[in-house]
């Protein structure tokens, strides 16, 4: 008889008692199937253990820096009630805020972008509802209510994403003259591809409101578009700062999106 999965996992973890360990070892010596299982699991654990950390997207620091600068700006304005103020409510973190770095002239529109970025990052984490099993809830009515709630939530999330996209588009469009024509063309092409995907996903959701893949696809489309627009704002920002290396890194990422 094969050892249980638990016994094999305990064996791998080295948490079996001496007698049980010997038993498993003896079994493994004569069982190619269990030996393969143990080898595979060890290989997976080795691979995950040796995997280098993932690099955060290049735009992540730009987003964060904008959010931080916006907070500093917010603090500097007495009586400010911006999004950063709202974020701090109930926070209790006693940070000291220095003002060593002067804010550069691009802060106003960057602040607007940061507000959108924050709104997207913090306020709109929509999770598509999974299929609700009637047997689980015990009543078809419960499933019906859940579906209605999912639709409402999806509509709300959609509205938030659309607002964020609208704001980012306004910023990106007004500053697009900063971009070289080829990058601007690539950007437009990628946006068109994403818009098409969003449009198709939206149609799928309308046709089948409870379809999780359709919901997920729509949300993914919004996220992709927001990511691309955030990259565009970050790129313009780097170009204005004269950071050619940073701009090149982001531009390279832009060209890969939507392809």
């Amino acid at each position, binding site marked *: 008889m094969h050892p249980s999965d638990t016994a094999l996992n305990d064996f791998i973890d080295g948490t079996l008692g001496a007698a049980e360990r010997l038993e498993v070892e003896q079994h493994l010596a004569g069982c190619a199937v269990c030996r393969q299982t143990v080898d595979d699991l060890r290989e997976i654990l080795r691979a*995950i*253990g040796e995997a280098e950390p993932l690099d*955060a997207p290049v735009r992540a620091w730009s987003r964060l820096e904008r959010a931080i600068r916006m907070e500093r700006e917010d603090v500097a304005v007495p009586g400010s009630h911006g999004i950063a103020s709202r974020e*701090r409510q109930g926070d209790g973190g006693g940070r000291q805020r220095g003002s060593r770095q002067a804010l550069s002239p691009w802060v106003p529109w960057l602040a607007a972008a940061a507000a959108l970025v924050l709104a*997207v990052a913090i306020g709109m984490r929509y999770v598509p509802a999974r*299929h609700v099993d009637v047997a*689980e809830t015990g009543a078809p009515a419960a499933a019906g209510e859940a579906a209605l709630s999912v639709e409402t939530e999806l509509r709300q999330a959609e509205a938030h994403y659309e607002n964020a996209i609208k704001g980012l588009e306004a910023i990106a469009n007004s500053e697009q003259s900063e971009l070289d024509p080829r990058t601007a063309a690539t950007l437009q092409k990628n946006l068109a591809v994403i818009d098409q995907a969003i449009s198709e996903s939206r149609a799928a959701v309308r046709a089948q409101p409870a379809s999780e893949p359709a919901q997920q696809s729509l949300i993914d489309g919004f996220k992709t578009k927001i990511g691309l627009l955030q990259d565009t704002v970050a790129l313009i920002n780097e170009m204005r700062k004269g950071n050619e290396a940073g701009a090149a890194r982001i531009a390279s990422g832009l060209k890969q999106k939507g392809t």
Partner: protein
Amino acid sequence: MTVDLVARIQSGDVDAFETLYRQHSARIYTLASRMAGSAEDGEDLLQEIFLQAYRKVGSFKGDSALGTWLYRLALNHCLDFVRSRQAKMNKLTETLDAETSIEPTARRETPIARLDLERAVERLPEGCREAFVLHDVEGFDHKEVADLLGIAEGTSKSQVFKARLKLRGFLRGK
């Protein structure tokens, strides 16, 4: 991490904070992406974690290394995210299992590709993914995982084992 750098960060120096970010962002992004099960959520969490760190770093007393403080903050933030999402989904792990329909990678003896591994971790069902990441990646023992996730120690163990076997199925087609 020098005392000087900590002091500069605490005084609100964004350049010093960027240094902290460069030193730790990869590890925290990796943790967040794996705990959340998606790179997109991982990026959002990374942003939130560092923003929170920027706000709270003034309260850092130096009882531990700043990196350790940051890691704890990140871990707590990821756990909050996971709990909140689980509450929102109001969904049991078991039902998700049936939906996990990743196409298994063809049987092979070659080393596991990094991308395949990350994708497979992303596809693990809620519950067992977090336990797996905390135990097999982050190195917490089952008692610690149980405390962190608010589950029984035995559940942590069974969730980790289930995750390993699922990963094997995803990666080895078994």
